């Protein structure tokens, strides 16, 4: 399994990378939505993207909208990992095509649980 970690904070990418590499994922990283889209277009297509919401250049919400608009990327699972925790924002992200949503701060278990709900790691 391959995961792309999209977050403008190196510290947060590092935390998420340790969790998913612990689950035997290969990882790639992007600093914002545009960076991630460029990588997807260049052929770095992961099984799952962990997507922050508030990022410079292109935010995570715009990113998932862009990914969902391209049928070639429909197999990519999208999981928001963000401090945005207003109920209406969660609803918006799910409506735009996010499969799961983890609110920061999170424990490593929360990420593992959600990836397992998505069938990406054995339960």
């Amino acid at each position, binding site marked *: 399994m391959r995961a792309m970690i999209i977050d403008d904070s190196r510290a947060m990418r590092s935390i998420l990378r340790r969790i998913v590499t612990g689950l035997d994922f290969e990882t790639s990283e992007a600093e914002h939505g545009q960076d991630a889209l460029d990588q997807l277009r260049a052929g770095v297509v992961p099984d799952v993207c962990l997507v922050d919401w508030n990022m410079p250049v292109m935010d995570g919400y715009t990113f998932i909208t862009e990914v969902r608009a391209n049928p070639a990327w429909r197999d990519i699972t999208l999981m928001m990992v963000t401090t945005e925790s207003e109920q209406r924002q969660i609803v918006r992200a*799910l409506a735009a095509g996010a499969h*799961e949503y983890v609110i920061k701060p999170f424990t490593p278990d*929360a990420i593992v649980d959600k990836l397992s*709900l998505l069938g990406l790691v054995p339960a």
Partner: protein
Amino acid sequence: MTTPTAFASVSALVRRETSMVYDEGKEYLVEARLNPLAAARGLGLEEYVGRLAFDAEERRKVVDALTINETSWFRDHTPYQAFTDAMVPALLERRQITRRLRIWSAACSSGQEAYSIAMLLDQHLPEGWSHEIVATDISTAMLERVRAGRYSQVEVNRGLPATSLVRYFTRAGREWEIAERLRERVTVRHLNLAAPYVGLGSFDVIWLRNVLIYFDAATKTDILRRMLPMLADDGYLLLGSSETTLDLPADLAAAWRREQIGRVPAYRRAATSLTPSLTSTGA
């Protein structure tokens, strides 16, 4: 650090009041759970334990603290999958007359199991059917939590699908509150599993997961014997994933039949195959 004497006295207290067993080796757990209680009283652990004999209120807190069960939403997934894929459809066939299901979440802790079941029944029961989920626990503090139906962000982050979070919860300050329509399906009752089961009625599915491990062999056997009449003839008993190999006396082993439902073993009353198919459960 607990001295052996202090540990022994706490473990005797919990055993007396709940029949749950805290063997040697569980010192770390007793310490972790009692330290905050002792600190709240401004006492060291030793000193706090020494006072328990004279303080019924603190004894109740200790019992509460030591009987709290780790839990999360849809814990282990597979039992919930088997519940919606196999047990509920079978029960829908067999309860055409009463159109009612009764579920027991035994040792419900903070209620995540009961509410996980409530969410599934909300999605999978057809119009015109009713259901009741009875949630029991020995901890009154936990029962209060179930009644309140409020969970922290850390709790809703774990194992709860985001679609269910937004569908069944609303934000209430720092916490998330479960929808009223689910809360009113859950009846909360105080119950010690080692004591008689009175006035509960019988159930179509009993969730008795990850709690038998806390009891000694004799109490376990006794609980499983007394579970028999609590379960409808064609009902299902679910145990925790590490509790499925039970060493039971021959007559009790013969009364339960293990049946693989999807990816989980369920326990069923052995006489089921002999009863007519149109049984109904009285509530």
